[in-house]
């Protein structure tokens, strides 16, 4: 289980997260909604261990996010975290070594992911020549290369065409079929959140203002939470 316990995070004088409590169980997909600046990205980075909470703690399976625990987490950030001068394959080989993935295993996973994401023909091209959609697919491969238990996706579908969105969705579906992953993703797309997640949470001003299972919730409820706390629609 991934837990945020009383997590607050401050940038200078501004609180990006304030006393936030959240838990996600294995096999569960949580959609995080919120306006720009509501703290979604900060929360994902804190859950990934990239940012240390100013107060509170993040725990994975009851343990703090140690260096070893980071090997169980995959983060797809706004930034692709890929070297533009290297090819997609070279980037993946580099990150596989950082995450201690054996070469044979890495090759198998690259084949599987590249096939599903339809990026095989671009694997040996430098990242700098790739379109936004293919960069996002490459970044997605980097995120999943070490088969993390926790997958944190920061607006994974933004700026992508329909085909690319379908490819990413098919990988997420494939992952969920294979194993009980914890998936947390941020989005501004309410219908996408209802389509993919089991639970919806809304952030406003760094606080969790709405949290409900999809089956007990409706788009109207979430929109009402936005109107009440965030001052507008998702």
């Amino acid at each position: 289980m991934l837990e945020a316990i009383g997590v607050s995070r401050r940038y200078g004088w501004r609180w990006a997260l304030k006393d936030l409590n959240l838990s996600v169980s294995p096999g569960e997909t949580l959609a995080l909604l919120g306006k720009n600046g509501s703290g979604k990205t900060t929360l994902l980075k804190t859950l990934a261990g990239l940012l240390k909470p100013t107060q509170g703690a993040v725990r994975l399976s009851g343990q703090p996010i140690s260096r070893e625990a980071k090997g169980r987490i995959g983060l797809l950030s706004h930034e692709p975290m890929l070297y533009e001068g290297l090819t997609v394959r070279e980037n993946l080989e580099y990150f596989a070594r950082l995450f201690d993935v054996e070469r044979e295993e890495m090759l198998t996973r690259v084949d599987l992911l590249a096939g599903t994401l339809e990026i095989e023909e671009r694997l040996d091209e430098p990242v700098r020549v790739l379109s936004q959609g293919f960069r996002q697919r490459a970044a997605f491969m980097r995120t999943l290369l070490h088969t993390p238990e926790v997958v944190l996706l920061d607006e994974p579908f933004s700026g992508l065409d329909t085909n690319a969105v379908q490819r990413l969705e098919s990988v997420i579906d494939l992952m969920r079929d294979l194993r009980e992953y914890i998936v947390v993703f941020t989005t501004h797309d309410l219908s996408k959140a209802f389509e993919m997640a089991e639970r919806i949470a809304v952030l406003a001003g760094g606080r969790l203002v709405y949290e409900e299972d999809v089956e007990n919730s409706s788009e109207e409820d979430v929109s009402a939470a936005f109107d009440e706390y965030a001052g507008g629609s998702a």
Partner: protein
Amino acid sequence: MRRFFSVLLAVVEKDLRLEWRTKESLLVMVVFALLVLTLFSFAFGPGGGSGENARAVQAGILWISFLFACVIGLSRTMGVERESTGFSAMYASPADPSALYLGKVVSVAVLMGIMEFVGFAVLAVLYHADVWKSAGALALIAASATLGVAAAGTLFSAMSARTRTREVLLPVLMFPALVPVLIAAVKATEAHLGGGGWADSRDWIRLMLVYDVVFLVAASVVFEYILEE
């Protein structure tokens, strides 16, 4: 240990591959060092001046040119990490920060080593310095100094990489910390260019080696906090 070296080598391979593709850092470093050495050769005349101080002047010009060239190279190398959010990617991984740091140090040291080889060759030609007679000793001095410069340079350039004033901040942080290495490198180089032996340079080389060890160990420990956003 296998994992430590695997990460270290992964960083070195990645950095050198990126450099081989673009040659952005190395080219600028070599050109800058050549320009400084050439300009000073005109200022001091062939042989780098005359009299007792000629060798000291040559050694001083040589290491100052290397140091300034290194700052330019480090800025570019760390620029690649900044643009690719490479530090965040490193910090998000379970890789040992010490291995990541030492990998960056080795990459920088390799680039510096190539630049220094060219620099010593230019010193021999433009300043009529007897570089080849003491090639072994000068190589050891260069290696000791390079390790120190790369160790400090990597740490401070990583610290300043995410700041807005990084170009100004890097030399301000790095140069004072490198004073012991610079003095030792100049003194040891001067001794060998002047036909001196190991007895004249031994203590300076020891000083550099101690500095290298202390800095490498200390920086390896703190590098994790520098990677943190």
